[in-house]
């Protein structure tokens, strides 16, 4: 009985080993009998796959972001590993955000410091009680359209950038998720109101914002902002306002283009076009900043758009901090220009003396109406 059991056990074990051996043989990765053995010559790496290019070189190229070829419509898929993505992530989530946040904080502290030093800039000759028309309804409408939409865009955009670190820990993930989604959609659509406001303001004011000689004198005297009894002459807009105007126009236009490219991803190559245009006049931006040379891939375009949109937006936010400050608590009588549309005559004489002279000249009636007829 014991012998029969041992024999049966041995046969079963043998069959099991045979079966396992068969399975292993079937699943073997040994090359088929028709395979050609590659022989190593010199320092050649084994494993050639095509045209004598070693596999290691191929994978190294893929790791470096070299594009292959694909037959599907999405040509981006030709790049298996987009190495710039890691660089983009490190910049976008690293020092860039902290530096931009620091810049906004420094701007606010500097304005607070300036207010502490200078206080509100008063109308030194006192308010006259007479007013002079400064901005028409369409001018103010364009300004407020641009201003309100910019504030909405700034708040919603900063939430996209900093909300996860600042807002989410306070209100929690459950509320932050839908709120951030709503604000993102708001950002997308309010952008079109900003574009309209930008266009109206440009049309209304571009002629008044051409630099002239008076601007040099105004800048040399720092606009009289740092000392009392200093009122360098200025036309309808002084040099500081012209800087704000061109900053808003060029920055706003740049935000429109980069924002448009973010709304419709992978459809535009604005950076390639810009780099090529600048390169044609000898300005090699990619070389200066160590960026990829054009033509950029669609993914690179999106990454550059994202970073550029963020940088320009924060610079504009800082600029608008200063604009809001000087247009409100920083200067007596300044808000009336955009609030009511007219300003006190003494305020206008102190800050825009050339413009006041021009307005007065236009107000003078024709000489034949002013001539006093002699009594007969």
């Amino acid at each position, binding site marked *: 009985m014991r012998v029969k059991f041992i024999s049966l056990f041995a046969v079963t074990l043998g069959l099991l080993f045979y079966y396992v051996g068969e399975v292993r043989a079937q699943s073997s990765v040994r090359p088929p009998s028709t395979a050609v053995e590659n022989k190593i010559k010199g320092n050649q790496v084994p494993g050639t796959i095509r045209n004598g290019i070693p596999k290691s070189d191929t994978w190294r190229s893929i790791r470096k972001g070299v594009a292959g070829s694909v*037959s599907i419509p999405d040509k981006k898929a030709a790049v298996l590993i987009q190495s710039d993505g890691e660089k983009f992530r490190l910049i976008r989530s690293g020092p860039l955000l902290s530096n931009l946040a620091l810049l906004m904080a420094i701007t606010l502290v500097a304005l607070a410091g300036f207010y502490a030093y200078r206080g509100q800039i008063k109308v030194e000759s006192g308010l006259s009680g007479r007013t002079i028309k400064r901005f028409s309804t369409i001018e*103010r409408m364009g300004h*407020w359209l641009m201003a309100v*939409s910019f504030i909405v865009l700034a708040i919603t955009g900063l939430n996209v950038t900093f909300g996860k670190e600042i807002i989410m820990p306070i209100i929690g993930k459950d509320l932050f998720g839908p709120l951030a989604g709503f604000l993102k959609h708001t950002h997308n*659509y*309010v952008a*079109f109101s900003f574009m309209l*406001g930008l266009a109206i303001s440009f049309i209304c004011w571009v002629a008044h914002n051409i630099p002239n000689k008076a601007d040099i004198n105004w800048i040399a005297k720092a606009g009289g902002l740092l000392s009392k009894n200093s009122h360098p002459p200025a036309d309808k807009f002084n040099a500081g306002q012209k800087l704000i105007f061109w900053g808003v126009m060029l920055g706003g236009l740049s935000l429109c283009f980069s924002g448009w490219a973010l709304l419709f991803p992978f459809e535009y190559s604005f950076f390639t076009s810009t780099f090529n245009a600048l390169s044609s006049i000898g300005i090699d931006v990619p070389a200066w900043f160590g960026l990829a040379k054009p033509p950029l891939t669609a993914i690179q375009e999106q990454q550059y758009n994202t970073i550029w949109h963020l940088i320009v937006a924060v610079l504009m936010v800082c600029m608008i901090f200063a604009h809001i400050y000087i247009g409100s608590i920083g200067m007596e009588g300044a808000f009336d220009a955009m609030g009511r549309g007219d300003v006190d005559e003494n305020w206008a004489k102190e800050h825009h003396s050339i413009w006041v002279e021009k307005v007065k000249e236009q107000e003078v009636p024709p000489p034949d109406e002013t001539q006093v007829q002699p009594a007969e």
Partner: protein
Amino acid sequence: MKAFIISILVLLIVTFGAAFILKGAFSTSADEAYRSSTSTRL
């Protein structure tokens, strides 16, 4: 004040107008980007 109220009205009209007109454009763009990146079209 009148200019401010007009600007707010214009802002609302343009914003909701853009949302109404472009909502389809955004979704189409996003869908297309997703579709083209994940499948082969015959």
